[in-house]
């Protein structure tokens, strides 16, 4: 179990827990059970581009830290090669 901010780019994970008071995150599709992936980080390091199912989101690191996920180990290989970030 780790936070979404710790998830390495290119890996998929399933959301376990979102702070229940974060109604906006939940409404945007970041809900327990959804499969997420970090696609990119912004040129200045923050925020992150996150894909939750079919939705692409701008998510700040501070918010990502509050979301708990479990990684999905190569259950479904992604169509795209992992993004190289430095």
């Amino acid at each position, binding site marked *: 179990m780790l936070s979404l901010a710790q998830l390495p780019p290119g890996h998929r994970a399933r959301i376990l827990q979102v702070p229940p008071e974060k109604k906006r995150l*939940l409404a945007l599709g970041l809900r327990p059970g959804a499969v997420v992936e970090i696609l990119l980080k912004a040129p200045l390091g923050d925020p992150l581009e996150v894909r939750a199912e079919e939705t692409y989101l701008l998510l700040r690191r501070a*918010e990502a830290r509050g979301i708990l996920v479990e990684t999905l180990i190569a259950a479904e290989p992604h169509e795209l090669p992992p993004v190289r970030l430095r």
Partner: protein
Amino acid sequence: MSCPRCDSDNASQKTLSPRLERWALVGGPNTGKSSLINALAGSQLSVGNWAGTTLERLSARLDLEQAQVELVDLPGTYSLLATSPEEALVVRELLQNPPDLVLNVLDAGNLERSLVLTLELMELGLPMVLVVNLLDEAEAKGLKINLEALEEVLGPPVAGTVASRGQVAEVLAKAKEARVPSPKVRYPEALEKAIDRLTPRIPNRALALLALMGEENLPLSQEALKAVEEERAHLEKTGLDPYLLALEARYATAQEVYHRVAHRIGSKPPLTEKLDRLVLHPLLGLPLFLLALFLTFRFTFTLSTPWVDLIGRVQEVLAGWVVALPIPPLARSFLAEGLVAGVGTVLAFAPLLFLLYLALAFLELSGFLARMAFVADRAMQWAGLPGKAFVPLVLGFGCNVPAVYATRTLSHPLDRLRTALAIPFMACGARLPVFTLFAFVFFPQQAPLVVLGLYLLGLVTGLLTALLLGKVLRAERGEGTMELPPYRFPPWRLLLRLAWARTQSFVQGAGGPILIAVLTVWGLLHLPFPGGSPYAFLAQALTPLFHPLGLEDWRLVGALIPGFIAKEVVVGTLGVSLLGAEGLNPLSFLAGVRALLDSLLSALTGTLQGLGSLFLPFSLNLAPEPTPLQVALKEAVSPSGALAYLVFVLLYTPCVATVAALRQVIGGRVALAAVVYQFSVAYMLAFLARQLLP
């Protein structure tokens, strides 16, 4: 409720017209609602404000055989449970001013999440049609959606559309079959029982659920509220969160429906994902961002200049004709320098705003604005603002008026307010003539440095204003989370129509206040007054207030008054009061017509040249001309006083057009408070600036 058509016959509608209907478009952000309105009734598009708010209301008239329909675009929302005032408006409209028909717009490319809102809307008890839009994007993703199956599974009629290409015919056909759907989601037992117990007091299922989830400001009686509180306490005791329970049940149902109607026939990585790798690239992202910003700025200001000039020429010609009229001099002056100048001031903003709205609508609907927000977000976090706020702030350096309207792209009103209050401190183009005049007279060696310093001072003051206001109004920082919509080609007709309707809304909403201000200043300058003009009297009365800033000449202080109309007027007024007025030249009819044709031609060629030079860098015109005005200025004030004057001109009350824009965007009372605040900040910082020099 069983017959949707009966709704239009209720008493309140009857007084207007028996066949008048209101259809509301409800759907998530970026589902193409405005494209749909445009495709259904584009030529009738109009823009206004929602009653009692400063939120933009987009609507259009649609004339059908059986009825006259007003199509209303409700703000995009993910759920009826509001997380922002715009979303709260959606709930309020649907519950308290129910439309005759709900057109629920769904994103075919993201159908599962769209269905969550649909399931919620089906509990409202309103006649409903589902419009599955963006079928082209779904197809590009390799998704096939069976619309007949969707209709069968859910109940309400389903129309498939590609609104951006005008493929919307099915909507009107399906609207005739609209009926009140029966709710689809079965919630966990505990929640269903709570809803059942509330039914006698709250018969509407959607309303009961919202109340249970803790939504405030619902149209409920005290008695009903008490019952809701009891049910909530009961659920909490068993450790259940009604919001999460309902959300889970809806997602589960949406998923089930989705899998019955959608089939993947291929799996292509979306183009958007590939484009994002380029646009948001760690190295290329920043230069591309700056290029987009630069182009927006150039497009708005370079292309509008020839048309603003044309309006100025028309104004001159009209004034010239008026001066040639055989009427008393005061009447001539009123018409030429009051009325014509006032209307001209309002209209001169129209080309600027039209182009800005065009650029902004393109950036917003194409998906680029969200990417610009993505890149700027980190930097804006420092001021506690979302990334999107960057674009209006930069536009403020061109002109504050369009920049204030550009804050409408921000979804949270608090962010909008703070950005709008920061914008007037951005040194707009109209302040540059004042800066250069003074800088070259008093600081000839460091003129560019002084001007740059003023720009930076404005920026820092604005950002600090936003930061401090954020601290005062709410402790926590904004979440900033937003959707990055897919890249799209917005239909150009929609862009033009939106820009046109929004420009019209400016002229109607802000035109009056600007005209009144211009006429007031005209009265101050020209009405007869014992021992001079009301202007001189007022300026002399105000001058002691400015002694602490090192300003003792009433003519300098006086020039700040017409500066309220437009800051560049400060220079002209100084010229008149220090050197004496130039008379208006009368113009014969024919000469006027010739001048008009000439300037129309140069506006057209200027636009073409502007298009060609969009990518060229700016040229700052800092050429010093030793004029009589500069000599006269040098005698009127000391260098330290001049610096204080510059700082004051930079920061004090923005021009009347900006105040009028603020009134439309953040409300009249706040705009008034802003004026007082800016005046105080300008006074204090000008006082400090004076101490910098001996």
